[in-house]
């Protein structure tokens, strides 16, 4: 029973992170019909940015500021850095290809992804860097009720993740920008004709998606400690799977998909083996694409002939 609850907690933690990454994919796909391969590497850069701040502030052994401040700054730095990176990528690698054949931005995205990965390898080396959260956070704190054991770090991650998702939902449904984003996702030309600055909206979408990915990067660092240049690749694939499972283009779908993949992976790792977690996620992707390609919450795309 304890074990089961533990996997539940793991699943929730993982799922919140995947949900954040999936949101970035979903939003960009909804607006541009583009799969941003580089998104996973933006997440990776966010994780490194957070690490950089940690080191700059004396961590992990000798923090110069109180823990709460350090963690807040790490998040801030990662989110801003990732957001900026996302905007730059859009400007440089995708915008010129707005009207090019579909395959062109995909290839460009592939190039960006590999460029980012190898840049990280060049700048940071191949070694794992570790957040070593246990050095500055007392992991014994947290909720310990019966079989339920959630460390304060995981609580932070889950809480922040949900807060961000709620903020995003409010943004999309209540603000003018959100409305503009929905309109542009629905029909870009019509939105432009209504006076919406489509370039700005797209830039904002990339920014927001990348900010979430950056936050996810710091979260993974805090919970799992290890960050390295390749971490974006697999996380990106799984984040994409989560977006597809939930229904690409749908924000609640991305959240749901993220949680689904997170829970699934936790239980497979716990009850079967960790080697097969990748297989499992892959299998889910195939099954969903075969059985319900529009995802759990997505709409079937009606193509006008």
């Amino acid at each position, binding site marked *: 029973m304890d074990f089961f609850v533990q996997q539940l907690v793991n699943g929730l933690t993982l799922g919140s992170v995947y949900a954040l990454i999936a949101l970035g994919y979903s939003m960009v*796909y909804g607006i541009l*019909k*583009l*799969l941003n*391969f580089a998104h996973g590497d933006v997440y990776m850069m966010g994780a490194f940015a957070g690490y950089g701040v940690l080191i700059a502030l004396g961590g992990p052994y000798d923090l110069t500021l109180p823990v709460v401040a350090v963690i807040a700054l790490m998040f801030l730095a990662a989110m801003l850095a990732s957001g900026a990176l996302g905007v*730059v990528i859009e*400007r*440089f*690698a995708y915008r*010129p*290809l707005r*009207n*090019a*054949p*579909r*395959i*062109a*931005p*995909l*290839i*460009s995205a*592939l*190039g*960006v*992804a*590999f*460029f*980012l*990965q*190898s*840049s990280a*390898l*060049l*700048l940071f080396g191949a070694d794992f860097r570790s957040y070593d959260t246990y050095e500055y956070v007392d992991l014994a704190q947290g909720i310990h009720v019966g079989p339920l054991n959630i460390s304060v770090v995981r609580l932070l991650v889950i809480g922040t993740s949900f807060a961000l998702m709620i903020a995003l939902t409010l943004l999309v449904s209540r603000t003018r920008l959100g409305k503009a984003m929905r309109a542009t996702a629905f029909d870009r030309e019509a939105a432009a004709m209504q006076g919406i600055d489509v370039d700005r909206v797209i830039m904002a979408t990339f920014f927001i998606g990348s900010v979430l990915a950056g936050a996810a990067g710091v979260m993974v660092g805090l919970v799992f400690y290890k960050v390295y240049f390749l971490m974006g*690749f*697999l996380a990106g*694939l799984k984040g*994409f*799977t989560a977006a*597809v499972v939930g229904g690409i283009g749908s924000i609640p779908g991305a959240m749901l998909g993220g949680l689904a993949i997170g829970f699934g992976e936790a239980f497979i790792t716990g009850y079967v083996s960790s*080697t097969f977690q*990748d*297989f499992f*996620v*892959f299998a889910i*992707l*195939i099954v969903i*694409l*075969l059985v319900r*390609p529009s995802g759990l919450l997505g709409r079937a795309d009606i*193509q006008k*002939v």
Partner: protein
Amino acid sequence: MDEHRKEPTPPQPPDTTREGGPRIGVDEWVARSGERITRRAGWTAPAAEAFERVPPWARLALVVALAACVPFVSDSEYVVRVAVNTVLFGLLALGLNVVVGYAGLLDLGYVAFYGFGAYAYAILSSNQFDLHWPTELTIPVVVVASALLGLLLGLPSRRLLGDYLAIVTLFFAQIFVVLTTNADRINVPFVDGPVDFTGGPNGIAGVDPMSFFGIELSRVEHYLWFSLVVFTVVIVGLHLLNESRTGRAWRALREDPLAAELMSMPVNRLKLLAFMFGAAVAGLTGTIFASVQLGVFPQNFDLPLLITLYAMVILGGAGSLPGVVLGAAVITISLELLRDPGNARLLFYGAIVLGLLAFMRPWTKLAVVAAGTVVFGFVAYFVVDAVHPAWTAGSIDGGGLGGLLDGWVIHPESSVRLGNGAFVLLVAAVIALSQLKGRWRLALTIPTLYLAAVVWENRLVFEPSVTRILLLGALLIMLMNARPQGLMGTSRVEIV
């Protein structure tokens, strides 16, 4: 009847029989005028035109013959191995061309078929299971198995749009790597103890060399000639296939899948066929690879290989057979040159010079930039030397060119941190360059070029494996922006 209602009258066509009126067929001359005026500009023109006058089969024969002569020209086994690698990459590019260039499917899992072919050959012809099948049997079996694997991957993928297909196939490639790295301890029912299928992270060594009807391919040259034969057969076969009903259907599928389906072409089946063909070619290439390397390892088939392959196909021009072969040759040779710092330097600066020559016109602009960069370099070196001598204390070895650069490029003893900082600055500068125009762009080009040299000498030249991926990624981005059809593809019109 209502007098406001007019009887509808059909519109009358204009009279075309008047003297001097428009005549059908006259516009033919106008339409053909483009053919008469087209003449290539630039100094490569006479060479290109001469090349085009040679019929395609003669060109192929010429290239193959030249390649076959490599062992006679050079004594070094290394050079012959590079030649073999080039041919193998050419084969892979041909196969990928079928999937991406003909059918327009973005298959990012292609290297998995290559790996499958290699591993399958290795398992059937090594001490792994003590199987030593004759090559005449192994190759067809592996090729058919690869095609079947392509079918298997294609089946769930056939209803997918391009983007989804890309991710699914990419995932598949990842699964392949995980599988080969971990399949050395599989519990099989009815068998005692775990079975080692793939040798795990250490791969399978001691693979048999190929032998046909008693003749063993024992030296690298033999493999070169064998792979050239295979290459010729495959390229001719694919060319003939492209000119046939299947090739037309593939191209129609690439243009507009829905219209193709409605014009009696079974789109799903055609996609599967493309997948299978690509997989078969990759599997075949895998067998040659396994036997020439006499072993297979999981890291032979990882993602960097995938991006290298895509760079070849895109650079050459997806859809063009000679194009992808050219792309394969250019990139393989460039990557080999990158391994040795002296050669890498030549390649790097040579590429920059070529790029400037190609893109900077008129030559006055080019002269300004070139001179400006040189001057800027010396000034920068001088200033830094005066202010912070530690930063110029290092030296650049590598004879000729290195000596020249020693007094020009800022180069501290331990160059990692400077190199990294310069790298970040360089990326920022390039991005800024892309957003600027006119005189500002020209002005910024000069320090950017110098920065590039600094980054190169301080970091990149020492890290060939990272540099190659960096450059390939950058190449893909630039190609899509500047010339999506690659070197030899035709620029395409798309319905947006």
